[in-house]
């Protein structure tokens, strides 16, 4: 494995200096006392991911963002499985942006998938170097040496050397060729429920999120942005804002007007006192009603062909029964718990940012472009993310902070209010789908056509945005006749990834419509799916597991119904069965049973947490609020009108997985898509009311 070794000591030294002696977010290890931090700073790099200190502390470098997925823990498991270190000796740091780590960014539930080989390899390589160092020291053949619990053992003499004692010699040895990796039967860590390494720091307030960064002489800023997407500042009067005690400066930036003060609250107060005149631009009259009219109009015309199987038109014409339906989903905001924020410090020769970001490499690039500093002189420090859900894969807020920081000579923290976060998001696009489906004389589905009218997810390509149709195509089934068309609707509302992306709405559309076809044919919804899954044994196994655990087909209390949904996304196969009742038009979700085949399960407890979390995201989207637009402005602004699930609404959730030897699939976005359709289908089972529009509103 070829690695460019990070000059870690240099890196730590400069960071510590910049932070006034505080180690800000670089160390995640639980309860690392300052003296321990000093000691660990002597760690020697064996490769880009494994640094070992003479004190036996093992520093594992995490090159993926931690936004709750358990990445720090699961990636450490991959490294430690091969490294054979003691779990208690592990400390972690987030990786800097250097070529050693490639393009740093977390999206598509890819952290484990993309690291599965890479990090086990890095752990094994470091282990082999340590064994070589020990063999040299003893003057023996390395074949009689073995690594075990942070030591190398001489199996002939029984002598032992700790990794710490070997670190210095090992760090000078050449990196060996790729060693053989353990077979799964030899795993000690992988497959066990290891406690999260970041929990202790997250129960005592010491975990450093982006918003928690404090630097010497740091100032605090907020930005008044155009109320209308794409609007520009015409003029502003800062007289009153400047009079607020603590205000240092008011400056115009590309996105609006920034107020810089000596604390966040003063900046917020002064912002309220600003008078800004806006050129609202081309989107000033955009409204949700107008967007829907556009969708309806576009859906009346053929779209670009996204997928054609068989001959759907002919099959529909000759079908014994034909069903038509229109499905809709709204714009959604991400609303992570930690509002967006970024600290930036720009000097004449350098630019440094501290951010909770999913996209460090893009962050470095936008910071370089905005500051005019060469990328090599831009440093990105990654902090814990208080949620991301795709929002923090965008770097607009980082570029903006750098622009604000250019106005002053000291570091500046730009904090977004919750209203800023909800009204200046890049949204999960709304979508409108016209379906036709046909069933044969025996009642089985034989044809589906779907015309998807949806803004692009921001990729801006002509023809088909494959993201906007994913879930309808590809889908888990073998449908003999399928035609999927895409009509791109341009609305002026910015869009981007949102947990599970296109599947977040298309799985609802597809799975709910399939339920309609099953009902029209008088078939059991699980039976219909089984019949269409002949080519997908992994999806079928997940369905069968969920059906068995949920007691599909067994009697329920009066008024309750069960609904099923399937999704194959991010390399995993997920089946869900929801149990609901409806009381005075209010939906109660009592229980969700989820079965997943995500390949090898690295950390079972972590997988279960992610399934539960993904279901929570899906339930909020299914049952709570939408983003709506009026005069080019987002109507919602905070958790009072963009409501999300609270504790009293959290259902019982059971998680199961299909044992698998396949390489890991993703998990962070596996369970979100299937929630709305499982709930909608359960509502139909309980009430015979068909839900075709999200969020679900009955009566």
């Amino acid at each position: 494995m070829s690695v460019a070794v990070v000059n870690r000591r240099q890196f730590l030294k400069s960071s510590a200096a910049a932070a006034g002696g505080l180690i800000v977010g670089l160390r995640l290890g639980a309860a690392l006392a300052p003296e321990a931090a000093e000691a660990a700073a002597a760690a020697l790099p064996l490769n880009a991911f494994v640094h070992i200190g003479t004190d036996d502390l093992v520093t594992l470098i995490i090159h993926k963002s931690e936004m709750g997925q358990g990445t720090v823990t699961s990636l450490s498991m991959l490294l430690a499985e091969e490294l054979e270190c003691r779990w208690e000796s592990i400390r972690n740091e987030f990786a800097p942006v250097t070529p050693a780590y490639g393009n740093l960014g977390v999206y598509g539930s890819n952290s484990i998938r993309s690291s599965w080989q890479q990090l086990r390899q890095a752990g094994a390589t470091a282990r082999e170097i340590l064994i070589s160092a020990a063999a040299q020291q003893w003057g023996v053949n390395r074949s009689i040496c073995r690594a075990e619990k942070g030591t190398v053992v001489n199996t002939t003499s029984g002598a032992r050397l700790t990794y710490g004692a070997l670190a210095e010699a090992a760090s000078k040895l050449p990196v060996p060729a790729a060693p053989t990796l353990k077979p799964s039967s030899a795993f000690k860590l992988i497959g066990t429920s290891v406690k999260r390494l970041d929990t202790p720091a997250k129960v005592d307030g010491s975990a450093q999120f982006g918003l928690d960064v404090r630097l010497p002489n740091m100032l605090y800023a907020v930005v008044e942005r155009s109320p209308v997407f794409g609007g520009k500042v015409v003029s502003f009067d800062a007289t009153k804002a400047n009079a607020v005690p603590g205000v240092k400066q008011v400056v115009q930036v590309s996105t609006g007007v920034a107020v810089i003060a000596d604390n966040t609250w003063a900046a917020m107060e002064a912002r309220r006192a600003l008078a800004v005149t806006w050129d609202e631009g081309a989107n000033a009259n955009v409204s949700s009603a107008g967007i829907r009219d556009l969708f309806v109009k576009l859906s009346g015309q053929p779209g670009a062909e996204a997928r054609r199987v068989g001959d759907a038109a002919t099959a529909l014409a000759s079908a014994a029964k034909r069903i038509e339906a229109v499905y809709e989903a709204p714009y959604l905001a991400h609303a992570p718990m930690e509002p967006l924020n970024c600290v930036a410090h720009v000097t004449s020769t350098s630019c440094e940012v501290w951010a909770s970001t999913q996209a460090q490499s893009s962050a470095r690039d936008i910071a370089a472009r905005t500051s005019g500093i060469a990328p090599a002189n831009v440093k990105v420090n990654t902090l814990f993310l208080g949620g991301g859900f795709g929002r923090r894969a965008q770097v607009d807020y980082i570029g903006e902070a750098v622009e604000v920081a250019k106005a002053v000579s000291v570091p500046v923290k730009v904090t977004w209010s919750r209203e800023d976060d909800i009204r200046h998001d890049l949204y999960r696009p709304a979508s409108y789908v016209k379906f036709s489906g046909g069933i044969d004389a025996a009642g089985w589905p034989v044809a589906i056509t779907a015309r998807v009218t949806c803004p692009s997810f921001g990729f801006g390509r002509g023809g088909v945005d494959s993201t906007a149709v994913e879930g309808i195509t590809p889908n888990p089934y073998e449908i003999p006749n399928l035609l999927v068309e895409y009509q791109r609707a341009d609305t002026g509302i910015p869009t981007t990834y949102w947990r599970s992306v296109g599947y977040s709405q298309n799985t609802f559309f597809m799975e709910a419509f399939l339920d309609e076809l099953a009902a029209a044919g008088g078939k059991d919804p699980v039976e219909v799916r089984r019949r269409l899954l002949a080519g997908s044994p992994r999806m079928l196994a997940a369905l069968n597991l969920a059906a068995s655990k949920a007691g599909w087909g067994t009697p329920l209390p009066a008024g309750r119904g069960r609904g099923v949904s399937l999704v194959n996304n991010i390399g995993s196969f997920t089946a869900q069965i929801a149990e609901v009742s409806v009381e005075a038009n209010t939906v109660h979700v009592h229980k969700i049973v989820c079965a997943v085949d995500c390949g090898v399960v690295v950390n079972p407890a972590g997988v279960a947490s992610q399934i539960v979390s993904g279901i929570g995201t899906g339930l909020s989207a299914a049952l709570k609020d939408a983003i709506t637009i009026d005069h080019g402005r987002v109507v919602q602004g905070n958790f009072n009108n963009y409501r999300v699930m609270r504790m009293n609404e959290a259902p019982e959730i059971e998680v199961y997985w299909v044992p698998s030897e396949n390489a890991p699939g993703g998990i962070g976005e596996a369970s979100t898509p299937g929630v709305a359709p499982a709930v909608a289908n359960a509502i139909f089972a309980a009430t015979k009311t068909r839900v075709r529009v999200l969020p679900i509103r009955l009566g």
Partner: protein
Amino acid sequence: MPIDFTLNGKRQSVDVPGTMPLLWVLRDTIGLTGTKFGCGVGQCGACTVQIDGQATKSCQTNVSTVAGKRVTTIEGLSVDRTHPVQRAWIEIDVPQCGYCQSGQIMAAAALLQKTPKPTDADIDTAMQGNICRCATYRAIRQAIHRASDLTAKGGAA
């Protein structure tokens, strides 16, 4: 006019406008960043602290109103994560992203002081003001029951 109060057991004096929310005094003026900003309008609970033992949203609390009172933040709940609620949180491995957890823990600790043996319904009522976007709610509920047991077995709440 300096405002004096007790913060995590120690005397604290701040010279800031009395209308400044306690949240920002804690975070920006004093530098205790364990208390989080989430919504600024008392809707999410991320900023929950205890004032004289009551769970209180610090974003909705003018600092002048805490003069002479006892303010406890996550940093002051225990010095070594040994408060029963923290022990239970670690045992159950509750946090995911973790951003809301300071507020959840402060609300849970206040609940257990008033109601040492809460039912699920008690917990749901007490914790409804605290949002978790990672949906760790069921784990939180389980951890509150566990903290209740730990307290009964002799941990000081």
